[in-house]
């Protein structure tokens, strides 16, 4: 099977454009494509007016927080940005638009976006401000919100182990949003610190099949993260 390993810069050149929608796997720091994000932030002039889909906003100047601090982002779709006060401030100052989605509905909207399903019915958020302005419908005598699919131009994933074809394996809680995003974008870039030969992973233990992956890139050690303790969202 094809070797998809390329340099980070080559992957960005090939798949990324200004004005696009990008998805990032990760929950807090776990499963976040930090190497891609650092290279993207270096290209802040090149990529503007972006829509970012990530569970959270990471932390100030870390992860997707870099894209925010660089002024590259127009809109964020997220579940919780509390660990990034810069993001909260930018939202309050209306420098970015933020759409908050309940975490499971966030995952599900992305999942159906990758599954050829345009919408589903949900009762999550009924009776709260989340339901305001959303389309509703009756089904079997009850009222539901109609939740629509989320897709992106590019998804950036971070696996613990990836093979050269793109088959991914995640440790512990790093899997999070990465799996649903793998199907929901036109192009999928996976980074991992550990890249192995194709055929190394057990077929049954693969979390994302390489067939959905466009490019595999080498994650760099994250020297800039020095303080102990993980970030959250």
């Amino acid at each position, binding site marked *: 099977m094809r070797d998809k390993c390329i340099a980070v810069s080559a992957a960005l050149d090939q798949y990324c454009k200004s004005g696009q929608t990008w998805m990032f796997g990760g*929950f807090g*720091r776990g499963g976040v494509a930090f190497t891609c994000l650092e290279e993207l932030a270096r290209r802040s002039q090149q990529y503007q007016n972006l829509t970012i889909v990530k569970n959270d906003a990471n932390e100030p100047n870390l992860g997707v927080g870099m894209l925010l601090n660089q002024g590259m982002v127009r809109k964020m779709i997220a579940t919780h940005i509390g660990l990034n006060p810069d993001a909260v401030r930018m939202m309050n100052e209306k420098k970015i638009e933020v759409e908050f989605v309940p975490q*499971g509905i966030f995952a599900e909207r992305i999942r159906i976006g990758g599954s050829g399903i345009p919408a589903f019915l949900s009762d999550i958020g009924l009776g709260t401000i989340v339901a305001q302005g959303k389309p509703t419908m009756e089904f079997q005598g009850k009222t539901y919100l109609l939740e629509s699919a989320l897709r992106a131009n590019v998804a950036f994933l971070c696996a613990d182990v990836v093979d050269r074809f793109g088959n991914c394996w995640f440790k*512990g809680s790093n899997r999070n949003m990465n799996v*649903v995003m793998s199907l929901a974008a036109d192009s999928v870039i996976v980074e991992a610190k550990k890249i192995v030969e194709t055929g190394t992973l057990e077929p049954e233990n693969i979390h994302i099949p390489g067939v959905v992956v466009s490019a595999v890139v080498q994650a760099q050690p994250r020297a800039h993260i020095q303080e102990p*303790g993980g970030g*959250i969202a």
Partner: protein
Amino acid sequence: MSALSLSPQEEIIIRRAAQELKPGMLVNLGIGLPTLIPSVLPQDSGITLHSENGFVGVGAPVVGTPDYPVIDAGGRAVSLLKGAACFDSSFSFALVRGGKLDAAVLGAFEVSLSGDLANWMIPGKLTPGMGGGMELAQKARKVIVLSRHADKSGTPKLVERCSLPLTAPSCVTLLITEFAVFERLEGKMTLVSVHPSTTKEAVLSGFTFSVPSIPELRSWS
């Protein structure tokens, strides 16, 4: 188990909350006070903890590197118990919405008399997003809310109507404070137990509206 120091009131709350968790239950513990419950549970409690970012079988906190691969939903590095299982976010919330959570233990800004919960947003002041809180509040079979009885100005957290945006309406099963336990019975948060340090009359007189109570209060523990 935790390095955080607990106030005596907080310890009363989490010890009372721990009584609600029985062997075999699948439980999600929200950030804050609920996270401290394991420190007062027996070693082999038989309770399985769910972390909504993607696993069941949450173990004790560990000292982790910044890229430690197992964090709970509060971002703490934790161990996995024997028999733990990892999954992705969509499966994790399928569990929640599918009704597999026996209980969620959550914090609160306000709980209304009808069991509405407000714990995610203070407009103009605190707007971080709801995370997974709405699903937990709406879909856990039992929603146990832990809170100090009143805020710093002495206003009880149990209110006639929530003034803050709701997390979910009519969802709270139990509200546990350092003075009282309220249970939603016939649609109303009802006083069912008071801590030995106070009395039914003292608790009820602290409200500016009428709070129902059961005729014979249950013992605290």
